[in-house]
């Protein structure tokens, strides 16, 4: 077995700063922003989503995001959704993804977290909790 060069080890080290991200915005139009620590940050493709962020979509806005476990999300007008917790192990591809949909409408195609654990992908709403199992769903909170 060949001894790996420092280049490869350096590559790993350099890639680590991306670790805090749980997903990225892929498309956004109209009023679409992330609320983080009391700040409102407008989003555009490539915006890095972190645990605790709240996605806020205006009356004529929309946004789409892909998470690091390949979960995909499309949020429609009037949506307010907080990504409360996101744990993901790249090696086992298991974890837990809990978000809170306060209002609005979202389409979700579940990713690896849901595929590998039927209890792990949850969307909470003010009165109920949805546990998503390898599915494509639309959730709507009035």
């Amino acid at each position, binding site marked *: 077995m060949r001894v790996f060069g420092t*280049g490869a080890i350096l590559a*790993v080290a350099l890639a680590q700063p991306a670790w805090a991200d749980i997903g990225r915005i892929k498309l956004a139009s109209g009023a679409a922003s992330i609320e983080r620590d009391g700040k409102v940050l407008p989003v555009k493709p490539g915006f890095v989503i972190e645990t605790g962020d709240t996605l806020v979509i205006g009356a004529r806005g*929309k946004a789409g995001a*892909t998470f690091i476990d390949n979960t995909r999300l499309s949020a429609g007008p009037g949506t307010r959704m907080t990504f409360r917790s996101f744990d993901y192990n790249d090696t086992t591809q298991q974890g837990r993804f809990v978000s809170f949909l306060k209002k609005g409408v979202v389409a979700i195609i579940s990713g690896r977290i849901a595929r590998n654990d039927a209890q792990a992908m949850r969307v909470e709403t003010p009165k*109920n909790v949805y546990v998503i199992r390898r*599915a494509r769903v639309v959730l709507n909170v009035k």
Partner: protein
Amino acid sequence: MMWRLSLSWLAAPLLLAGCALSQVALGPGENGEAGSVAVLNAAGTEVAVVDKVGAVASVSGASASIKTMGSAAFDAKYADLLAGLPTPPRTFVLYFKENSVEPTEESQALMAEIFAEIKKRPGADLEITGHTDTVGSEEVNDAFSLRRAAEITSYLFSQGLDKTIVRIAGRGERELREQTPDETPSAINRRVEVTVR
């Protein structure tokens, strides 16, 4: 009496609809699997399970009423929202020359395609995941698969890949492309998968 009973039974969901707090609709799955959604109340108790494609559950706390809209109606009703879903991730599989960390000729040719795919996707990010065959212990293979991913990453960085869009992982021998017994060499299993999201 029966008539009155059934009427009130029917009316219950309608009355609740006035204060329907949330709704879930199950669409056709991507790989032909319907999937399912469990609905829990605030206490965590299961209220309903939605597992038919095209079913819609209107939910308020402990009560859920399930209706069927059908798969075509689902696609039509939510067309705008579904169109806003990001493109599915695309995975490229790279193989190595025998006893080497150098990619095969075919795999080297794929590198250009990876860059082309990144260009096509606004806000793209990459996951570079190494895999091993079943030769060696799980611990060794976890480390080895990560190094294999790092080699490819290092190469892609040298070709100008944006360092801020990359995650590296080693899956060890957990995800075999070719099913083999333990301690079996396999060139197909020794690989790096580059997923462009």
